[in-house]
C-alpha cells in the first residue's frame, strides 16, 4: 500500500494546477498562494522521498490497466534526486513567477500549465518502463508548449511552432522506436530489458529502434541536429519557464537516453561511439553559438545545449568504458545535477534583468547590473560554477568527465588501437570548456562590469524579497556543492549510479576515494580557463565587438543569418516540399473515381438532355389542364422521401425476384 505514495508527486501538482486555476478565476492573490503552496508541498514530498531513498530503500509501484498496459513507477536514488531537483526548481520558479509575470495577461493559464508540466516531468523521472515514460513525456511536451508561448508575441508563436513540431515529430518517431523495441524484446520494463537484451546473440536488430527512441528523447534534450528549438524557445519564454525548460525538461530527455544506454545498450561500444559523436558535436556547436550570441537568454540557451553535449559525452563514455565506467557515470550524473542548479540561478538572474528592462540584448542591458551586488554575486556563482572553476560545483563534474576520456584513451592505447580520434574529443572537450568560460565572461562583464551608455531609470527595489530568496538560496548551494565534493557530490553520485549502470554498485565497492583537487585534475581546468581567457580577450573583445557611430564599442552578432538549420533545411522541407508532393499525389488519387465516373459519362454512358417537364407529360389520357391535386399530395410526390419510397419499393421488388430465383434454384 505504501508504494502508492509514488502516485502522489505526480498527482499533487496536477491537482494543485486545477485548484489554482479554479481559485484564480475568483481571486488572483489567492491563486498565487495556492500555486506557491502546491510547489512547496511538492518539494516537501519529494524531499521526503529523497530522504527515504538516501537510506538505501526503494519503492516500486505497478498500476495495471491504465492506458492498456499499465504504468510502472519506481523510486531509487537517481529518480529521487531528480524528482527532488524538479520539485525544487518548480518551487523556486513558481515563487519567482509571481513578481516576474506581475503584468502579464493570462497568468492563470501559465500557472495551470506550469504545474501540470511539473506533475508530468516528475512522472517521467519516476517511470520504470518506456511506456510510462512516453506517456508522461508527451504530456510534458504539450503542457510546456503553453509555457513557451505565454506572451503570444509573433516571435514566441514562431518559436512555439518549432517547439511543438520538434516535440510531436520526436514523439512519433520515438513511438515507432518503442513499437519496434517491444516487438523485438517483448518488454519495455527497465527491470526486464537488460535480461531480454542479454538473451539476444546480436544487438544489431536493436540499433534501429534505439536510434528512433534516441531521436525522441534527444530532441527534448536538445541534441544535435534536433537542438533547433532550444535557442529559439528560451529567449521568448518567460524566464521562469526558460529555467525549467533548460534545467529540467532537457534532463527528462537525458533520462530517456540514460535509460536506453544503461538498460538496452549497456557497455556497448557502437552505441557509445554514436552518442559520443552526437554529444561532441552538440557540445562544440552549442558553445560556438553561445560565443556569437548577443542576447542574454539566447546565450544561456546555447550554453544549455553545450552542457547537454558535455552530459552526452559522459553517456557515450559510459558505453565505451564498459566495466571501467565509474568515472563517466559519476561525471554524467553530477553534471546533470550541476547544470540543473546552475541554469536555475542563471535564468532567474536573467529574468530579473528582463523584468526591469524588458530587454535582453547585451547592448541594451549593458552595465545595468553595476551597483547591484546581490544579483551580481548570484550571477557570478553561476558563472564560476558553469565555467568549471575549482571550488565551484561545475569543476567536480567536468573533471570527472575529462578524467573518463583520459582513462579511455589509456585503455585504447593499451589495446594497441589508434587513439587519435579520442585525443580530438579530449581537446574539443577542453576547448568547449574554454568557450564556456569565454561566453560566460562576456555575459558577466557586459551586464555587471561595464559602464552603462546612459544611466537606467531604476525603480527600487529591483526585485522583491521572495524573488531574492529563491535566487539566493540556490546560488549559495553552488559553491557549497563545489567545496564539499566528497560530502555532497560523491554521496549523490553513489545514489545515482545504480540507475545509470545497474552493474556498478556491487562492482566498485572497494575503490579508492577520488582526489578531487589533485594536480592532474586541476591541470584540465587550468587549460580550459586559459583557452577561455584567450578566446575572450582575442576573439570576443577584438572581433565580436565593433565601434559604433559614437566611437563606443558594441557587441555585434557576426553569426551569418542564413546559417540556421531550421530556416535552411527543416522548414522548407517539412512545410513546403513534402506537403506539396504528398498533396499532389493524394489529389490525383482522391479524384480518381470521380474522373472515372465522368469519363464514363462522356463516353459509354453519355447522358441525353432531359426535356423540360410539361403538365401533359403526366396527364393520363386526354390532356386536362389544371388537374386539381391536393396540396399534401403535391408535397408528398415532390419530396425526397417519396422518391426514396419508390426507390425502396423497387428495391423490394428486386429482392423478391432474387428470392424467387434462389428458391427455384
Amino acid at each position: 500500500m505504501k508504494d502508492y505514495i509514488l502516485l502522489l508527486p505526480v498527482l499533487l501538482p496536477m491537482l494543485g494546477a486545477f485548484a489554482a486555476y479554479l481559485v484564480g478565476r475568483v481571486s488572483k492573490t489567492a491563486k498565487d498562494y495556492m500555486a506557491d503552496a502546491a510547489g512547496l508541498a511538492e518539494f516537501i514530498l519529494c524531499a521526503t522521498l529523497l530522504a527515504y531513498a538516501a537510506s538505501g530503500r526503494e519503492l516500486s509501484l505497478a498500476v495495471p490497466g491504465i492506458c492498456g498496459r499499465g504504468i510502472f513507477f519506481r523510486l531509487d536514488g537517481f529518480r529521487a534526486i531528480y524528482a527532488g531537483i524538479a520539485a525544487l526548481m518548480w518551487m523556486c520558479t513558481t515563487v519567482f513567477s509571481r513578481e516576474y509575470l506581475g503584468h502579464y495577461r493570462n497568468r492563470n493559464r501559465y500557472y495551470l500549465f506550469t504545474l501540470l508540466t511539473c506533475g508530468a516531468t516528475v512522472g517521467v523521472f519516476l517511470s520504470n518502463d518506456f511506456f510510462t515514460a512516453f506517456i508522461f513525456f508527451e504530456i510534458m511536451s504539450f503542457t510546456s508548449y503553453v509555457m513557451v508561448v505565454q506572451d503570444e508575441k509573433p516571435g514566441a508563436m514562431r518559436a512555439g511552432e518549432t517547439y511543438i513540431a520538434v516535440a510531436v515529430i520526436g514523439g512519433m518517431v520515438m513511438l515507432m522506436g518503442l513499437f519496434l523495441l517491444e516487438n523485438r524484446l517483448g518488454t519495455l520494463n527497465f527491470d526486464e530489458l537488460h535480461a531480454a537484451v542479454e538473451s539476444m546473440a546480436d544487438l544489431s536488430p536493436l540499433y534501429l529502434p534505439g536510434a528512433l527512441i534516441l531521436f525522441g528523447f534527444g530532441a527534448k534534450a536538445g541534441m544535435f541536429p534536433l537542438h533547433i528549438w532550444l535557442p529559439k524557445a528560451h529567449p521568448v519564454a518567460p524566464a521562469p519557464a526558460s529555467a525549467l525548460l533548460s534545467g529540467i525538461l532537457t534532463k527528462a530527455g537525458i533520462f530517456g537516453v540514460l535509460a536506453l544506454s544503461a538498460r538496452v545498450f549497456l557497455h556497448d561500444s557502437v552505441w557509445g561511439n554514436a552518442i559520443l559523436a552526437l554529444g561532441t558535436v552538440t557540445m562544440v556547436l552549442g558553445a560556438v553559438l553561445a560565443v556569437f550570441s548577443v542576447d542574454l537568454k539566447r546565450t544561456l540557451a546555447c550554453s544549455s545545449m553545450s552542457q547537454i553535449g558535455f552530459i552526452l559525452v559522459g553517456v557515450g563514455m559510459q558505453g565505451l568504458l564498459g566495466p571501467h565506467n565509474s568515472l563517466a557515470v559519476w561525471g554524467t550524473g553530477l553534471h546533470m545535477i550541476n547544470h540543473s542548479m546552475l541554469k536555475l540561478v542563471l535564468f532567474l538572474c536573467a529574468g530579473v534583468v528582463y523584468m526591469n528592462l524588458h530587454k535582453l540584448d547585451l547592448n541594451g542591458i549593458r552595465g545595468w547590473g553595476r551597483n547591484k551586488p546581490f544579483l551580481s554575486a548570484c550571477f557570478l556563482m553561476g558563472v564560476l560554477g558553469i565555467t568549471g572553476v575549482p571550488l565551484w560545483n561545475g569543476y567536480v563534474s567536468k573533471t570527472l568527465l575529462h578524467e573518463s576520456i583520459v582513462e579511455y584513451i589509456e585503455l585504447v592505447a593499451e589495446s594497441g588501437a589508434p587513439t587519435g580520434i579520442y585525443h580530438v574529443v579530449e581537446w574539443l572537450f577542453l576547448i568547449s570548456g574554454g568557450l564556456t568560460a569565454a561566453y560566460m565572461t562576456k555575459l558577466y562583464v557586459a551586464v555587471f562590469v561595464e559602464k552603462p551608455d546612459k544611466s537606467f531609470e531604476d525603480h527600487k527595489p529591483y526585485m522583491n524579497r521572495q524573488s531574492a530568496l529563491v535566487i539566493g538560496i540556490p546560488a549559495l548551494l553552488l559553491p557549497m556543492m563545489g567545496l564539499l565534493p566528497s560530502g555532497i557530490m560523491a554521496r549523490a553520485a553513489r545514489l545515482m549510479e545504480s540507475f545509470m549502470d545497474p552493474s556498478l554498485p556491487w562492482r566498485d565497492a572497494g575503490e579508492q576515494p577520488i582526489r578531487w583537487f589533485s594536480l592532474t585534475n586541476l591541470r584540465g581546468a587550468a587549460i580550459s580557463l586559459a583557452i577561455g581567457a584567450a578566446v575572450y580577450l582575442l576573439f570576443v573583445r577584438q572581433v565580436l565587438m565593433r565601434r559604433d557611430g559614437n566611437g563606443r564599442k558594441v557587441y555585434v552578432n557576426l553569426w551569418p543569418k542564413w546559417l540556421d538549420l531550421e530556416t535552411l533545411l527543416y522548414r522548407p522541407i517539412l512545410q513546403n516540399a513534402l506537403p506539396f508532393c504528398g498533396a499532389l499525389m493524394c489529389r490525383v488519387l482522391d479524384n480518381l473515381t470521380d474522373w472515372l465516373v465522368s469519363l464514363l459519362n462522356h463516353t459509354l454512358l453519355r447522358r441525353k438532355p432531359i426535356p423540360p417537364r410539361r403538365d401533359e407529360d403526366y396527364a393520363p389520357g386526354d390532356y386536362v389542364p389544371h388537374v386539381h391535386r391536393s396540396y399534401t399530395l403535391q408535397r408528398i410526390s415532390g419530396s425526397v422521401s417519396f422518391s426514396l419510397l419508390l426507390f425502396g419499393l423497387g428495391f423490394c421488388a428486386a429482392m423478391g425476384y432474387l428470392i424467387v430465383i434462389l428458391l427455384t434454384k
Partner: protein
Amino acid sequence: MENNTLLLPILLPFAGALTLRAKRLKNDGSRGFFVTAILACELILASVCAVCVKDSLHIVTLAPDLELMLDPDGLGKLFSLLVAFMWLMSGLFSREYMAHEENRVRYDAFLLMSEGVLTLLCFAGNYLTMYLGFELMTLLSTPLALHTQTDAARRGGLKYLFYSVFGACLGLLGFFTVYTFGSSTVFTPGGVLDGAKCAGHETFLLMAALLTVLGFGAKAGMFPLHAWLPAAHPEAPAGASALLSGVITKAGVLSVIRVVYYQFGPELIRGTWAQYVLLTLTLITVFLGSMLAYKEKIFKKRLAYSTVSQVSYILYGLALLEPTAFTGAVLHVVVHSAIKNALFFTAGAVILKTGKHDVRELRGIGKEIPVTMWCFTLCALGLVGIPPLGGFVSKWYLAQGSLASGIPVFSWLGPAVLLVSALLTAGYLFPITVSAFLPGADFDYGSVEKREPTPWITAPLILLTALTFAAGLFPGLVTSLASAIAGKLV
C-alpha cells in the same frame, strides 16, 4: 420470449418517427422532448439487450436457408450500444443546433429511423439481415445528408447515395458467393465456406471477398470509394454529419468484420494477394485522408477527410487478420466515434455561434466559447494519439498487431504510415486550437464576447470528451471484450 426484446430497439424509433406528426407534438419544445425521450429509451433498451439477451431471434423465414434473423454477439452488442449512445448525444446536440432550421420534423423522423435500421444491422445474425439493414441505412440516412437542400448538399447527398448503393451491389455479390460456396449465411466465427465446394475456385472467392470488402468499405470511406465522404458530410447539419462520420462509417466497418471474419473467414484471405491489396488500399486511404485534411481549409470538410483517414486505421487493423490488431481496431471504433462526434459538434457550435466555416477565421475563438474549444482540444489530442487519451492506446495495439503479424513490408510500413498520418493529424488540428486560444499579443480582447452554447451542446461535448479520456485511461473494458472475440475469430 425474452429474446423478442431484440425487436424493441429496432421498432421503437420507427414507432416514434410515425407519431412525430401527431397534434400534440406540433410545437418544437414538446417534440424535442419526445425525440430525446425516445433516444434515451433506445439507450436503455440497447443496454438491456446487451445484458439480458443470449439467444437468437428468427423473425421470418423466406426459404429454408434464407431468413431474417437477429443474433447479437459481443461485437453486435458493443456496436449497438455505441450507436444508441452517439444517437442520444447527437439528439441532445441537435435540440439547440436545429432550433432555427426548417423541416425539423423530417430531420427528427429520419434521425430516429436510421437509428432503428442501424440497430438492425448491429443485431443481424446472418448476411441477409445485415444486407437489409445496410441498404435501409443508406436510404434512411440520405435525407439527413440532403437536409439543407442547397445545391452542394444535394450533390453530396446523391453522391452518398450512389456510392453506397454501388457498394451494396458489391455486397450483394458477396452474398451470392457465400450462399453458393458456404454451408450457410449465418455469422459463424471463422467463416462458413465449405471446403468441398470451394476447391478450385480460390481465385474467384478471393476476388469476390475483395470486391465485397470494397463495397462495404465504401461506407467506411475506403479508397477508391471514399469520395462521397468529403462531399456529403460537410453539407449535412452538424448533428447529422457527426453521426454520418462517427457512427455510420462504423456500420461499414462492422459489415466488413462480418464479411471477412464471419463469412469468408480470415483463413481464406491470409497471406494472399487479396490481403496485400486490402492492406495497400487501407494504407493509401490513411495517408490520403490525412494529407488532404491537412490541405483543406473548410472546417467540416477537414474533419470529413480526417474521418476517411481514421476509419481506415480500423480497416487496416482488420485487414491484418491478427488478434492484437483486431483489438486495436475495435477500440479505435469506439474512440474515433466519440472523438469525431465531438469534433463535428464543435464545428457545428462554431458555425451556429459565429457563422464561420473556414479554419483561418477562428482566431481567438477559444476566448468566446472556451468550454467547447477545450473539448475540441482534448479530443484533437486524442485523435492524434497523445497519451493518456483514447487514440493512443488503440494505435499502440494496431501497431503491435501489425508488427506481430510478420507480413513482409506491411508489418513495419503500417505503423510508419499510421505515425505519419498522426503527424498530419496534429498538423491539421493543432493550428485550430492554437489560433483559438493563443490569438497573439496584438489580439483585440475588447471584441471578445462570451457566446458559449447552452448545455444542450456543451453537455454532450463534455460527455464525449470524458469518454475519450476513459477510453484512454481504462481501455480494459473494450479491449478485454475485443480480444476475447478476436481469440475466437483468428
